């Protein structure tokens, strides 16, 4: 339990610190750095408390469920490998915090900085103590995100933003490959638990998916660890504040890839594919990084390329799949962390004090800043692999291993190339120290400002350099037990005996090492000439290529996207129709069956054929004369008429009534709209387009017509309608089965339907209420009728007739409403009839005059209609029945006789009110819209 709490605290501490810092965003710098440093120190203490079990083989371990179905558990464990990395992350983290406290200026956003730093620390720590590979992935991607924030900390600088984006793209992208690889790994191994996976190395390597999985995982590792050809992001990440560079590029971020290679060593390593790939990539990276580093001028850039080179070496060592090589890698990880962090900090101090990082402008700084010079020079010597520093030991171990592997069948290739890499390492390391601190100052300006910083700033690099030195002097004391335990953890076997020392006698490694030092010295002495040679060679700039690729991709994709996604309704509909046609054809071809069924047809009489001809002709006329809009509208009315007739003849009186009344309202609506639209706009479709559309239209028509034919010529099976027919009267209290379905069996549909109408009314109101304002209002006021008007507004005969038509039609509406339950009619039709009655009134006598006399508001009709319909449903609930359960009974009164009362009538009243309100609202709003716009403008003018 104590272990569990320790592990949990360890994992959460950095995040808690990040949160706390973010919360105290406005507090002084010291608070931020204090929290960060305190958290790091506390983490170190916790880690120290775990040292004994972790290194002793009794791995502290804890597991909680998170997403069991995924295999993603919160498993934390600190094995030697994790412990060592944790030490680096927290230790160097603490030093970075101390350094950054002095490095950052007071006016900078230290809250954001330290919060991001702690977030990063937490993510990094998570990677190394995760005991579940999916959990590891979580932290892995989190480091990419946190580093994005850190690299982009100076967001006002273009290079910072670019560098951050590039780092995110490369490492985050690699992380995605890693996700694929890790999931595959888990699926192959049958578990996502790290320890379980590590125990199943043979099984994994035997899987046919091993190469794919390996490729994906290596992609993740290589991108993170800046291996060729993904190395280019790293130098550009130097746009970050120096403490960030220290942290990310000495001990943490870039080491994550190396860590993962080490972590998965028992599962991945050992195959030829693995060995060749990893070794080659590491070797190439090492050479490339070392070479480029020699010719950079920015201090941090030099260090960045050196980091690439050193990472290449580590990757190469792990690629060997040999225990001794792994040991060398482990040791070098420690060395590199120490000297590289010290060097980055030194570079930061130099920049901080001189205002530049350009090595060409600096020189002779040893006089002005002796402490810094001492620190940096010692660290550079370790980097160069000079004795008696730590770097020497690990480099020699590396060179010792190189002959054991024959690349491309050539046993000498690896030693030679590795030595070459070492030579360049020596050269750039020496250059860093020599050009910076020795000689005379090259420019006066920076030199004049230069002086050693306060101890607070150099303490951290000093400590690190001391470590780097001690790692060379007393390796057995300082490193051997740790290296032994970690190597055991890496290889998954017993910890090996470790013999670390500066002197192993004269062997090949020593010779190669000497050669490298000598060669490095030569290279440095010829540096000026080599530099001019280098600068003349035009080498591909990976970053530039990355940017160009991205830019090109963006341009191409954007172009394609814009081309295909222009907001074209024609295209949308074309796509829709084409897809539907395809699907219908697919269904028809693969589904089987016959077109014509066996149901006998109903012989049609002459008027049926005539009406059919009318419909066909009218449809053709609409299509052919659609640009003559009024005429097209007349033809549409004809179609509506024929459809109504069809319903009337084919035993659907309710449908006929509905269609007829809807038709009338639709015509009114269209005419109202048409008034403000062009009446005969020019035709703009090309002939080609028309032909294409016609082809699609015909195919679509034939298909739907064919389906209708197939359907109509088949006998229906048993239908639920039999129940409706049988129960309409006894159960629903009405003889008009259609109406009983509407207000009882499927009243819920009807409720939805009236709400649709109500919403349409509201939407139309919302649309038109603002028509008088803005561009629309201006256009309406400027609108001139495009056809001559008769001056007479209200024809006398029409007005006089409307006075009697209104009451007569209302009576018909009431009649249709009351009888709807038993005969054709009902609330909806009645509402339309009543609406038509009022519309005739509006037509004849004008809107204002008629509307002023109307005792109801359309909004209220809609609102109350829905409420009444709802109340009918809820009433049933109050009586203990389901929503919308109907009730009816027969009563009898003297004189009047027997009559029926039914809850369905109340529901129908709701339908009536809503429909009336919606229809009236739509048409009333649309009418005299131009007049209203003018009136609104007048009022607006008159108001101020």
């Amino acid at each position, binding site marked *: 339990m104590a272990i569990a709490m320790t592990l949990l605290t360890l994992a959460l501490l950095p995040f808690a610190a990040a949160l706390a810092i973010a919360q105290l965003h406005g507090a002084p710098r010291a608070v931020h750095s204090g929290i960060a440093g305190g958290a790091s120190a506390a983490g170190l203490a916790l880690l120290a408390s775990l040292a004994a079990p972790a290194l002793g083989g009794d791995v502290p371990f804890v597991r909680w469920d998170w997403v069991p179905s995924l295999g993603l558990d919160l498993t934390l464990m600190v094995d030697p490998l994790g412990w060592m990395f944790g030490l680096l992350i927290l230790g160097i983290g603490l030093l970075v915090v101390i350094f950054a406290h002095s490095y950052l200026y007071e006016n900078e956003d230290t809250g954001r900085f330290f919060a991001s730093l702690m977030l990063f620390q937490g993510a990094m720590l998570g990677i190394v103590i995760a005991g579940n590979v999916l959990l590891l992935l979580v932290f892995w991607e989190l480091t990419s995100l946190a580093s994005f924030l850190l690299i982009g900390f100076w967001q006002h600088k273009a290079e910072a933003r670019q560098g951050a984006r590039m780092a995110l793209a490369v490492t985050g992208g690699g992380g995605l490959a890693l996700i694929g690889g890790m999931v595959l790994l888990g699926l192959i191994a049958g578990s996502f638990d790290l320890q379980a996976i590590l125990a199943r190395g043979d099984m994994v390597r035997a899987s046919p998916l091993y190469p794919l999985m390996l490729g994906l995982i290596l992609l993740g590792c290589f991108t993170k660890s800046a291996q060729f050809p993904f190395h280019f992001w790293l130098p550009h990440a130097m746009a970050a504040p120096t403490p960030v560079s220290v942290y990310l590029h000495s001990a943490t971020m870039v080491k994550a890839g190396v860590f993962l290679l080490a972590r998965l060593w028992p599962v991945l390593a050992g195959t030829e594919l693995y060995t060749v790939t990893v070794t080659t990539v590491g070797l190439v990276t090492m050479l490339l990084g070392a070479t480029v580093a020699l010719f950079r001028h920015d201090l941090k850039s030099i260090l960045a390329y050196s980091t690439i080179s050193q990472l290449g070496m580590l990757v190469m060592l792990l690629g060997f799949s040999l225990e001794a090589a792994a040991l060398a890698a482990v040791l070098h990880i420690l060395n590199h962390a120490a000297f590289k962090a010290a060097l980055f900090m030194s570079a930061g101090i130099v920049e901080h004090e001189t205002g530049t990082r350009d090595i060409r402008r600096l020189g002779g700084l040893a006089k002005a800043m002796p402490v810094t010079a001492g620190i940096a020079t010692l660290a550079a010597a370790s980097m160069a692999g000079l004795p008696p520093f730590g770097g020497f030991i690990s480099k020699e171990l590396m060179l010792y291993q190189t002959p054991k592997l024959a690349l491309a069948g050539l046993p000498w290739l690896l030693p030679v190339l590795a030595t070459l890499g070492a030579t360049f390492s020596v050269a750039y390391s020496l250059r860093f120290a020599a050009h910076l601190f020795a000689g005379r100052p090259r420019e006066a300006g920076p030199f004049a400002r230069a002086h050693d910083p306060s101890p607070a700033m150099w303490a951290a690099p000093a400590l690190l350099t001391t470590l780097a030195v001690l790692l060379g002097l007393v390796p057995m004391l300082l490193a051997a037990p740790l290296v032994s335990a970690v190597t055991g953890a890496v290889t998954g076997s017993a910890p090996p005996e470790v013999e670390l020392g500066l002197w192993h006698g004269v062997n090949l490694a020593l010779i190669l090492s000497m050669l490298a030092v000598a060669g490095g010295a030569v290279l440095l002495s010829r540096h000026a000439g080599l530099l001019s040679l280098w600068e003349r060679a035009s080498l591909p700039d990976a970053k530039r290529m990355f940017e160009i690729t991205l830019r090109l991709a963006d341009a191409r994709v954007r172009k394609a996207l814009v081309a295909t996604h222009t907001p074209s309704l024609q295209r949308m509909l074309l796509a829709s129709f084409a897809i539907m046609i395809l699907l219908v054809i697919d269904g028809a071809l693969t589904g089987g069956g016959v077109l014509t069924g066996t149901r006998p047809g109903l012989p049609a009489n002459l008027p049926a054929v005539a009406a059919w001809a009318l419909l066909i002709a009218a449809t053709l006329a609409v299509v052919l004369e659609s640009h003559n809009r009024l005429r097209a509208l007349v033809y549409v009315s004809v179609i509506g008429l024929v459809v109504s007739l069809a319903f009337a003849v084919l035993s659907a009186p309710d449908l006929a009534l509905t269609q007829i009344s809807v038709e009338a309202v639709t015509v009114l609506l269209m005419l109202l709209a048409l008034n403000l639209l062009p009446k005969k706009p020019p035709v703009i479709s090309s002939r080609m387009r028309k032909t294409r559309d016609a082809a699609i239209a015909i195919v679509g028509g034939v298909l739907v017509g064919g389906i209708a034919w197939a359907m109509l010529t088949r006998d229906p099976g048993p239908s639920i309608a039999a129940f409706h027919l049988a129960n309409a009267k006894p159960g629903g209290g009405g003889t008009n089965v259609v109406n009983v379905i509407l207000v009882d069996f499927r009243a819920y549909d009807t409720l939805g339907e009236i709400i649709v109408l109500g919403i349409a009314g509201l939407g139309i109101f919302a649309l038109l209420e603002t028509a008088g304002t803005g561009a629309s209002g201006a256009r309406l006021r400027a609108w001139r009728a495009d056809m001559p008007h008769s*001056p007479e507004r*209200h*024809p006398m005969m029409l007005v006089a007739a409307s006075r009697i038509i209104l009451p007569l039609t209302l009576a018909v509406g009431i009649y249709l409403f009351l009888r709807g339950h038993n005969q054709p009619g009902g609330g909806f039709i009645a509402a339309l009839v009543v609406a038509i009655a009022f519309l005739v009134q509006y037509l004849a*006598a004008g809107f204002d005059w008629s509307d002023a006399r109307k005792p109801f508001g359309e909004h209220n009709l809609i609102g109350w209609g829905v409420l009444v319909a709802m109340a009918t449903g809820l009433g049933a609930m109050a009586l203990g029945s389901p929503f919308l359960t109907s009730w009816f009974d027969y009563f009898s009164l003297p004189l009047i006789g027997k009559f029926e009362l039914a809850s369905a009538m109340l529901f129908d009243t709701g339908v009536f009110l809503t429909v009336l309100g919606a229809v009236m609202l739509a048409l009333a709003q649309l009418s005299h819209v131009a007049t209203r716009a003018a009136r609104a403008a007048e009022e607006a003018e008159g108001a101020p």
Partner: protein
Amino acid sequence: MSGPASFAELLAAALIVLGAGFALVGSWGLVRLPSLMERLHGPTKASTLGMGAMLVASVVWFQLGEGEWTTHELLISVFLFVTAPISANMIAKVHLHRLRTGEASGGASEPAGPAGSPAPPPGSADWATHEAPHQGTPGDFAGD
């Protein structure tokens, strides 16, 4: 078939033939008469005697054939009688309007029939279609 039924049948049949005949004649008039104002006379037949006869046939048939009184068919006639003149009036107004504006603009948006264009009424006022009615004139109770 029994006696009354066959009488009803005969009566209904006669009325149907009469009604449908007038409807046909009306539509035939629509086709053959020379201009809009003449054609406007056609539908009046269909909507008055044509419909009337068929509706009476329906009343007769349901009463004598099926034994139930159905009177509501007559209501259709009432509606037709109220609305048909208004429809005709409105179409005629459109004709007059288009005739006048066509003449004014020189183009023939509506051909005049054999009767030509109507002369303006005696006095100062024009036909209502061409002139906004003055205060106190019939159609003016409403509106404005």
